[in-house]
């Protein structure tokens, strides 16, 4: 395996890890505020469809992205009304939203485009690769040149945005008043309420942020990674992101490493079908299942306990 092959796999890791990262950060904000969100998948799927559809209609990928974000925010609001306002079960609400997205996207796609639940292929309105300055000039520098040109340069803008969002999320969560309150509302909402801060407003703010991030993830899937929407195109990524969030123990920087690890697994499974180790063969299905198996191992507490925010999953009842 030469340097070029490794770089290609890592390059594909970054591209496949980016939607996971965006969704994982979405889950981070939501769960840190005490709202469990297994509807990441559905939000990203809805955003993927609407961003592809409107990028096609308008010819502008940015319009598509905005509409995708609005769609994801609408889903977030339904989740908020169900689980914050009406204190419903957050898990059930998330499950419902996933099905709603899965059905609605195909239904609307079939009505608008009549292509079997897909959008037409996007020719122009996509996020294109951005070659960083000097990538071509430095390509001939040994080792560092190809790394810069292949791995770091030449991704679409959302990839760079996603990576920048990691330090930003850390800063917001750990260095701002809003972040402190947001984390507090996920641990002990009664204390936040006593301090005179609205639990409901904070939680809604958190799930709105989650909606925006899922919107970015969906729009990257449909207009960056691929050229258009296909049915069920999130393909369980929302759940992998959820797994990565547990893997990351609800911390921003760990989110980056966890999602890139899972991205790497996907990249390897995509490139090699069955991996022949001589003594035995690792089947491709095992590689595909590995993120889930790893999460189970982590959850089992064999590799350090993963403890969620204390109040996550509980609706806040002000008084009885």
């Amino acid at each position, binding site marked *: 395996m030469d340097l070029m092959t490794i770089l290609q796999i890592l390059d594909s890791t970054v591209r496949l890890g980016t939607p996971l990262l965006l969704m994982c950060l979405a889950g981070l904000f939501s769960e840190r505020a005490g709202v469990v969100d*297994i509807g990441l998948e559905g939000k990203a799927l809805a955003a993927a469809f609407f961003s592809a559809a409107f990028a096609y209609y308008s010819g502008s990928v940015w319009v598509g992205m905005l509409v995708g974000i609005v769609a994801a925010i609408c889903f977030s609001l*339904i989740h908020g*009304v*169900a*689980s914050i306002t*009406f*204190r*419903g*079960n*957050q*898990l*059930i*609400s998330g*499950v*419902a*939203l*996933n*099905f*709603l997205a*899965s*059905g*609605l996207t*195909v*239904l609307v796609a*079939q*009505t608008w485009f009549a292509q079997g*639940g897909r959008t037409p292929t996007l020719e122009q309105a996509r996020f294109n690769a951005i070659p960083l300055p000097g990538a071509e000039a430095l390509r001939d520098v040994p080792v560092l040149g190809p790394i810069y040109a292949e791995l770091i340069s030449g991704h679409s803008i959302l990839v760079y945005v996603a990576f920048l969002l990691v330090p930003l999320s850390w800063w917001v969560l750990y260095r701002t008043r809003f972040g402190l309150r947001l984390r507090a509302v996920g641990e002990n909402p009664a204390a936040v309420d006593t301090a005179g801060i609205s639990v409901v407003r904070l939680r809604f703010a958190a799930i709105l942020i989650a909606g925006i991030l899922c919107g970015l993830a969906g729009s990257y899937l449909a207009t960056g990674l691929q050229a258009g929407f296909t049915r069920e195109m999130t393909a*369980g990524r929302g*759940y992998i992101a*959820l*797994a990565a969030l*547990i893997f990351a123990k609800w911390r921003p920087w760990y989110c980056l490493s966890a999602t890139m690890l899972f991205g790497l697994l996907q990249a390897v499974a995509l490139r090699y079908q069955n991996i022949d180790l001589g003594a035995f063969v690792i*089947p491709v*299905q*095992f590689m*595909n*299942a590995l993120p*889930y*198996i790893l*999460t*189970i191992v982590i*959850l*089992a*507490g064999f590799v350090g306990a993963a403890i*969620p925010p204390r109040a996550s999953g509980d609706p806040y009842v002000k008084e009885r």
Partner: protein
Amino acid sequence: MDRMPVWADVVLIPLISLLLAAALSAVAIWAIGENPWDAFSLMVDGALMRSSGWGYTLYYATNFIFCGLAVSVAFHAKLFNIGGEGQAVIGSLGVALCCLYIPWPHWTIALLGSTVFAALFGALWALIPAYLQAARGSHIVITTIMFNFIAAALLNYVLVNHLRPVGAMEPASATFPAATHLPDFRDIFAGGEGVLFRGSPANVTFFVALAACVLVWLLIWRTKLGYEIRSQGYSESGAKYAGISPFRIIIVAMLISGGLAGLMGINVTQGEAERLILNSAEGAGFIGIAVALMGRNHPFGVLLASILFGFLYQGGAELAMWTSIPRELIVVIQALVILFTGALDNMVRWPLERVFMAMRKEG
């Protein structure tokens, strides 16, 4: 004091939620450019006005009964088993192994054997998440979701690498021996000759599902174990104080739940396809959630809700065939039912409670 009478809780709230879901679905159909009333009558026509329509409706309902019972048994212990899909997939694998490798003399004995295998495989697939929840506190929702994906990968692996007949392209097992084929409704009610239930997949497994309903009812409300499961669900600390081991109840409830979901494999794999196919669970594991929520976790409610969803499934297939409405409409309706009966329950409940309280004050 109860805030409202039992009948309102059991009948009125699900009914209102269902009407809300139906109204929104009608809006969706209208937005597509079709007439909701025409669509509804087409669904009724295709699913309920012909015996073959009923054959399909009851075939789907059989799947939903098993998965709905699975979800509701877990709900009684306050566990959310979202892994019915994976347990059903592994249950189907158990059925396939049992039918392919054991020489059964007659379908009656084969049915008994596959029942045991399906339940056993499904239960074992639920055991690890159950153990992790009981012993390590790992959240069962997350672990069962992960096990759904692992089950799908495992089935794919087994089909492609082991069960696929030599030379076949499609990832499916060989057809089961003729002695294991279950009689369908046409064999039972029309002697295999007449037009009654012609070409429809409902089979003898439906009666197994009915038996499962009765058994679950007996288990939950007429046995000590059922009492313990319900106590655990009502208040874990209370149950613990009464000497009920949470560890044991979590494990047992999840084993029963997984076994019930696994039983679905008989209907699809042995009853209809007569071989193991890749998408053997057909998403029914998730519909089990909607069914259990609508049926208020009672076997009779689950039965009714299953038939309703069977009707929606078959009617949806008819719509996809005759109109421009795609099958995915069913997924939307399913999502709305889960949303309104599950997550937005309080939206209906709170105003109703207020109405009943006001009526009580006056009366």
